């Protein structure tokens, strides 16, 4: 029997270990799995490498995880946020490292990691400081840099509807990094606004096939990061 549902977010993240690499879905607040991140803060794992496009907002969700000192390294494209000073302070003090990756290269590295493509040549970043330390190679007269596939121990993502098999559909631009992160992690953990039985999703419209998903937890009424930030909430 295949049923990937777990009872709550605590159970879902229970085995995330110190030193793990964790991909976290979301672009800004859209798609950010806040409840899973808060469960990870409660759970206590530390020395994490986190992959996310940003570094969170205010002092909730990803920003709260960083503020709690649990993140030793961020891999992201845009670590600045108008309303968060959490990452900048830890970065400047040297307590959190940063691997800055162009956004498209980040997405492609994650896809490659999930697809068994160990490395690829991309034109992005050629002739810029972000090319430093990377192999440059010319194909047909144009220059490219070698980028490596990126994988993770865990992915934490959010979706609109999941079925028991872990088939997922998303909501609008909250889809963003989640489908590729789901493919690149050893254990993909999903918070879903609704969970349905196999057969309730149209097989033509499934975005993430269940093979990429390991745990599904029902979070029917997730918090909005922007609302929490506006309320001045600081987690925990």
């Amino acid at each position, binding site marked *: *029997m*295949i049923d990937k549902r777990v009872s709550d977010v605590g159970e879902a993240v229970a085995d995330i270990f110190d030193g793990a690499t964790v991909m976290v879905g979301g672009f800004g607040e859209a798609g950010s799995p806040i409840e899973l991140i808060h469960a990870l803060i409660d759970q206590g794992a530390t020395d994490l490498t986190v992959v996310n496009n940003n570094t969170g907002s205010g002092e909730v969700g990803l920003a709260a995880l960083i503020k709690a000192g649990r993140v030793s390294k961020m891999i992201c494209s845009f670590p600045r946020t108008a309303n968060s000073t959490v990452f900048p302070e830890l970065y400047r003090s040297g307590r959190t490292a940063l691997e800055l990756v162009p956004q498209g290269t980040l997405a492609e590295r994650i*896809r490659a*990691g*999930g*697809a*068994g*493509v160990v490395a690829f040549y991309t034109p992005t970043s050629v002739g810029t400081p972000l090319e430093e330390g990377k192999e440059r190679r010319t194909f047909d007269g144009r220059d490219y840099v070698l980028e490596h596939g990126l994988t993770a121990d865990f992915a934490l993502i959010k979706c609109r509807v999941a*079925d*028991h*098999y872990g*088939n997922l559909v998303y909501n609008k631009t909250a889809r963003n990094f989640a489908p590729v992160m789901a*493919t690149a992690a050893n254990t993909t953990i999903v918070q879903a606004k609704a969970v349905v*039985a*196999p*057969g309730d*999703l149209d*097989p*033509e419209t*499934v975005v993430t*096939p*269940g*093979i*990429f998903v390991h745990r599904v937890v029902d979070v029917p009424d997730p918090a909005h990061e922007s609302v929490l930030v506006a309320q001045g909430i600081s987690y925990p």
Partner: protein
Amino acid sequence: MTQETMSIGFSRDEMAQRAALDIPDGAYVNLGIGIPERVAKYVPEGREVIYHTENGLLGMGPSPEPGMGDPELINAGKRQVTMVPGAAFFHHADSFAMIRGGHLDLCVLGALQVSQGGDLANWSTGAPDAIPAVGGAMDLVSGVKTIYVITQHVTKTGEPKLVESCTYPLTGPGVVDRIYTDLAVIDVTPEGFQLAELAPVVDYEYVAERTGAPLLPKPDIGKAAS
């Protein structure tokens, strides 16, 4: 059919049935064209297995009732199939991302030859006038976690198909984990071919004689414990 039922050892369906016993509950499985396709119908009751077909479907079901098929719902062998509740369609690059990325648990394939090191040759005899055709076999063996092979133990002319070293062009080196033949179930181990199980009637010597490389006998559990 007469020939098949007359032969010693497992029939084609019995080979598929024996392989099916080793498919774990909850596995994501790709079945190669031919005898491997038959495995699905023998998976023991109570186990839920999700079948992948590389042309873009996870959750493949059995053949449709006659006249009920859709020519646009086919498997990798281009035969009409059905889908189960909870299926998902995707395009070819995503399908092979699943394969290459190591997301499938198990693949069952046919073989021309398997070497004692687990090399598989199953796409070409290398004959000069043959049209080379590889399909998805190389992708499957390089990506899927566990590779099972179902094959006759020897060729129609009696040559061993389990060999020291493949003479046919390889599909992939060191990829096969277990082999189901009409005579035996054989594991590929770091020490070479290791007998796991004999077909009814045949004995170790009978199988070893027909194997083109050393065949380690089945470990004697009694001895090992003493």
